[in-house]
Structure formats: structure tokens, C-alpha cells
């Protein structure tokens, strides 16, 4: 971006969730990430895994922040990347679901253990591992819910956190199948 200041329109930045369909091949993720770092955009969360093993396509769910002009720019720039097939702006399209999985290890003694289990039950977290001095909880849900859970656990003892980042999908019966069918099988 130019160092010449942009038009003096003060527009608030907002969070956007993008959903990309890309070729699952070496370098694709590097291209996407390189675009963000090279052009000074933010990535708040990014997840990627293959979702179509016939066409070798992956979905990247990406949360970014910016003014609407910046977001439009990000979307157009993403589409210039050759192995990127589809860029969807879920925030703009309509209702969508955002979900994240977190693994939380808590080291706690005595009554704190009871409290931890009680909170875990309230949040519907699963207990994956138990020792006499620790737990590992698994929790899925929206990022805010996970933030809240982690915050509570941190007040009970030493914690270690692993989060997947946001995975997202639109609500309703629309699918991408028709668009993806146009992509030739490799």
C-alpha cells in the first residue's frame, strides 16, 4: 500500500469471517499467508484442512479485521492467487456458524478440582484425561464461550491451552457443490 494517506474517511474496522476453497498443494497456504503479511493485513484466526479428496481441495476458514474497503481488497487479492478457487465472505452473506475446538489442561488441587469439574459440566466440556493433580478438557463452541471457559480455568490453577481456530460454514440449504463441480479433476 502506498505511503500516501488514503481518503480521510474514518470507518470502523470490523471482524470478518472468510471461507476459501483452495487446491491442496504445496505453497498454497504460504501464498495466502504471504499475501496478508506482504500487504499488511491482519489474520486473527486461520484453519485449513482438505475437504474434498477427489479434487484435492482444502477449505481455509479465516478471520480478519478491516474497513470494508480493506476487506474488499483482501478478497480481490485472494482471488488473484491461482490455486484459490472460491472466496466467500460469510459475515456479509448472512447467518453462519463459527465453531472452534479447544484442549485445556488444568493443574489444580483440592476444592479447585471440584470447582473445575462443575464449571466443565456447565460448559459441556468433555474430560479427556485425568490425573490426581490435573485434567484435560475438550470444549467446542464459539470463540467467546471458549474464552470464558479458559478465563475461569486460569483462575483455578496452572493451564496449558491448545485451540484450533475458527471453522465456519453458512446456515441454510445452499451449498457450493455446483461451483466446485466446475473445477476439473486433477
Amino acid at each position, binding site marked *: 500500500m502506498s505511503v500516501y494517506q488514503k481518503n480521510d474517511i474514518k470507518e470502523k474496522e470490523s471482524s470478518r469471517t472468510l471461507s476459501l476453497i483452495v487446491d491442496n498443494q504445496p*505453497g498454497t497456504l504460504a501464498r495466502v499467508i504471504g499475501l496478508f503479511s506482504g500487504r499488511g493485513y491482519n489474520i486473527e484466526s486461520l484453519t485449513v484442512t482438505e475437504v474434498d479428496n477427489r479434487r484435492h481441495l482444502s477449505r481455509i476458514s479465516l478471520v480478519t479485521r478491516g474497513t470494508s474497503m480493506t476487506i474488499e481488497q483482501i478478497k480481490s487479492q485472494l482471488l488473484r492467487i491461482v490455486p484459490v478457487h472460491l472466496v466467500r465472505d460469510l459475515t456479509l452473506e448472512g447467518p453462519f456458524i463459527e465453531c472452534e475446538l479447544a484442549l485445556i489442561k488444568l493443574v489444580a488441587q483440592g476444592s479447585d478440582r471440584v470447582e473445575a469439574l462443575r464449571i466443565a459440566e456447565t460448559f459441556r466440556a468433555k474430560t479427556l484425561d485425568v490425573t490426581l493433580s490435573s485434567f484435560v478438557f475438550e470444549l467446542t463452541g464459539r470463540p467467546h464461550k471458549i474464552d470464558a471457559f479458559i478465563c475461569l480455568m486460569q483462575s483455578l490453577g496452572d493451564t496449558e491451552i491448545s485451540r484450533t481456530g475458527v471453522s465456519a460454514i453458512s446456515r441454510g440449504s445452499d451449498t457450493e457443490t455446483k461451483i466446485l463441480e466446475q473445477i476439473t479433476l486433477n
Partner: protein
Amino acid sequence: MKVFVQMGSDLQMNGAEAVIKALVENGVEVIFGYPGGAVLPLYDALFKNKKIKHILVRHEQAAVHAAEGYARSTGKVGCVLVTSGPGATNAITGLTDALMDSVPLVCLTGQVPTHLIGTDAFQEADTTGISRPCTKHNYLVKNADLLCDIVHEAFAIASSGRPGPVLIDLPKDIQLTDVIYKKKSTKINKIRNNYETIIDKNTISIVANLLVKAKKPIIYGGGGVVNAGPEASSLLSELVDLLNAPITLTLMGLGAVSSENKNFLGMLGMHGTYEANMAMHNCDVMLNIGARFDDRVTGRLNAFSPNSKKIHVDIDKSSINKVVSVDYGIVGDARKVLSLLIKEIIKIKDETTNSLINDWWTTINEWRNKKSLHFNQTSKIIKPQQAIKSLYEKTKNMDPFITTEVGQHQMWAAQYFGFSKPNHWMTSGGLGTMGYGLPSSVGVQVAHPNSLVIDISGDASFLMNMQELSTIVQYKLPVKIFILNNQWMGMVRQWQELNHGTRYSESYTESLPDLIMLAKSFGIKGIRVNEIDELDHSLDEIINTDGPVIADIRIEKEENCFPMIPSGAAHNEMILSADDNNTNISEVGLALV
């Protein structure tokens, strides 16, 4: 699907041979390159193949610039072949230059064999990693069966949509693997992220209406028009005539409309004409076609053309609303959009249309009368402006191709040399690469062996890639190297004079070689021009020499390039001469480039 081919069939070959065959199939006639360990099989295949001419450059950066010159002067895809490691890293500047200026290239790089990748092998570099942000797309071929498809796809990507460089990294073992040659698929594979969109008829009609009803229109054309082919350029002239609208062109767009067209206001931007910039500032409807509101063009953005409806036509969607918010964005090829616009305008235009803008032309002519490109050639010392002007007048009927380096001489060439056709002006616009012009002229002259090719150069830029003199001599390329020699990095010195209190930090070119002796050492003609009286006959001598010439034009040393929009200023805040520079550069302006 498996294809069975009999042993000894002419479709069976090694990877390197398949690559060369695929280049031929994609219309490659010339390849610019430099050999090395990791590309020896490819060079072997080239040796056996007689259809492609190889031009041996003296530095890999020059190979890319030469291919750029070739591509820009012909409209074809340029092709480069370099080795792994340093060969590839040397090519990076050229690739970045091609990406910024949307030049279609395919660059083949050698790579260490696949089993050695990642071991820090000799001459190994992560070429696809390094070149990722400076190519339109790149490939590392790890499966020889995909080789042919990848080469075909690379050409399609390089030349489609907004053109750009594509790199293919070829490990040495892949070059030696036996493969079965695959022809380009007859049904054109849809390039996966398709630039082509359906141009909205409704927008075309709104835009046509705006243009027809405009009282103060301006058309601002860029390199996209040149890239869309010669037909786009003639359509642009047609549109200008139809509306009798003023037209200005960016550095990259020069030639899209003839400089002799009565509606042409000259180049716009930082060193553009007063009339072009004032017209941009005061217009009511702006049609930008194939340009990208570059910071050299817009000046201060919050004061950029404040009262106009802006229309932006670009093949790259990301160019629209990138730096300037526009009212109407049209994503599409300049040729297609222009022809639709013209049709629509013919439909709705009536006799009153052209008279609407009479007042506008009166105003523009007042700006023209400022004669912002005026200079005084009074003493015996040659003014650089005069040197370019005389060169233009001497050569304008010879259909010359001009390349330049980067700096003051480049701006003077853009201001004082007139271009009547597209694809005759090769300069490094986006990246501003000193050392672009000489190697670029190699590519242009190879493509047009019988044409007059002139590299307008500065002394500092010339030194950056002067090893290419050797290439010029080897291939007997009669390039005329026209060096405006002021012994300074002129543009750096100018900014130091204007913005940094004449503290000329490191901008003097110490220890310049004697350019005449240098020419002699390469066995080519050197001509020095010391005074204005010698200029005319020296130009004749330069032009009429059969072989290459180095012309050492000794010019006024501290001449500045004007008019100028100072950094951080707007279109209506131009300075026309050094005496005009009473405004202090703003603090923000000082930080700008």
C-alpha cells in the same frame, strides 16, 4: 488414463526435451538465458533443438529484462532460462519488475535434484519460496509426468487476464526423467481463477451517459490499454475523437494514443504536464482505463480530483477501489470495454454533445499556454530536454523503439519524446529498476532486428547493467545507447536539492569510465557530444551507424526535471521551475518516496 506409446516413438523423450518442445508449441522463438550446473540437460536439449534461438546474456537479471523488452515490444510471452541458486536469485529483480508492470513472462529455473532439495546442496535456493511474492504464479515440478501440462498452463497464466511472470522450478533429475510428450489440450482449460467477468451492460450505459453529458471530462489511460493489444489503442483514439475529450496517459500508457493527437495533454503525474494534472484535478467525469491510480500519478490522495465522478476500467478487480474509491468499477479487458462503450456512446450521442465541453477546452488551453515543458537552451551546454527533443525530431519518421533506465533521463524521455504507437516504449514504471533499459533494448532489438532501437540512459543507470554490452556485440545488435551524462544520480541529487538542503549525500558518480574508451574496448563506436553545436550532426552519425553506438551526451549537470508535483502535494500544487519551489515540503511529504 494411461497412454501407451511404442518405444522409440517421437513422443518419448527426457524431461528437458519435453520442456523445450512445449516451449516451441507455445510459440517461443527466442529464449534469454545463462547456463549453469542445474540446467545442463535443458541446454543440451536446446543444443539439439534448432527452433529456438538462445540469447546468452551476461547476468540473469538482464535475461529477465531482455525478455521483458521482447514481450512488451511484440505482445508475446517472453521466455527466460537460468540456473539454480544464484541464477534464480539474480532473476528476482527482473521478475518483480515484470510483476509490477504486468509483463507476460515464463521463467525456467534449474533446481538441485529432488532428493537433494532441503539439504543446502550446492547452488540450492528455495526458488519457489523466494519468488512467490514476485511472480503471478510459480511451480516446483516434482513429478515428471506433469511437466508438459505445467509448461502449457504457465503460458496460459502468464498471458491471460492481467499478464505477469510465471516461474517453473525444474529439478535436474526431473529434466533427465523419461516422459511422454503431451500436447496442449485442444479444449482450452479454464484458467482456474478466471479474470473474465461478464461486463454489466447497465453499467456501460450509465458510464456512457455520464461521459456524453460531462461538461469537464478527462480520459486517463494506462499500460492496460497497451497490454490489451493494438486494437485497444486504436479504440481509445476513437473514443477520444468521438467525445472530443482530453486524454492523458500514464508513463506505462505512452503510445496508446499518438502524442500528436490534438486532444492529448501529455503524461500526467509527478512529472506530468501542468495541463494534464490540472485537468485531472478539475474534471467532473474521469474515465480511468487500464491504469491503477499509482502514487506517482495521484499525488496527495485526499486532494485527488475532488469533484469528479470516477469510472475505473481494469482487468484486475483488486485494482478497483484499492487506493481511490471510484463511483463505477468495470472489471474487464480494455479492448472489450472500449468497444462496448463506443457502441453505446454512438447510440446516445447527439449534435449538442461536443459543444458541452467548449468551455472546458478553453480552460485547458489556458493551462496549455503555461507551457510547462518550456526550457531555455541558451548557453553552449546541452540541456537534456533539448537532447531528447532533437533525438525525437531526428528519428520520429523511423518508427523507433525506445527503452530507458530509471531517473531524470527517463522522465525527460517521457516528456519530450513523442510516441505515435503502442509497444514502442519500454520503461520500468512500477518497480523503477535502474539498469532496465540496456538489457531491455537487447530483447527489443532481437525481436525487431531491422528497427531503430534506442536505449535512453543516464550515466549511473548505465553502469548497473553495462555488462550487456558484451551481449550486444556478440549478437551484432545495433542498439543506440544514448547516455545523458551529468555525472550525477540526477533524480537523487534533485530530491536532495529540493528536500534536503542541497546536501548531496553519495549521489555523485565518482570514477565514471571514459565511455568512448569503454565502447572501443568492446569494439563498438563511441561518440561524445560536448556542446550544443555538435548535437545535430552527432545525432545523424549515431543514427546512421550500422552497429551499436555508445553516445556520451555531456549535459547540463545540475538541470532539474520539471514540472513536478512535490512529494505530499496535490495535482493543483505543481511547481513549474526551481524558482517556484518556495513551499516547504510538509513533514509528511518528507517521509514519502
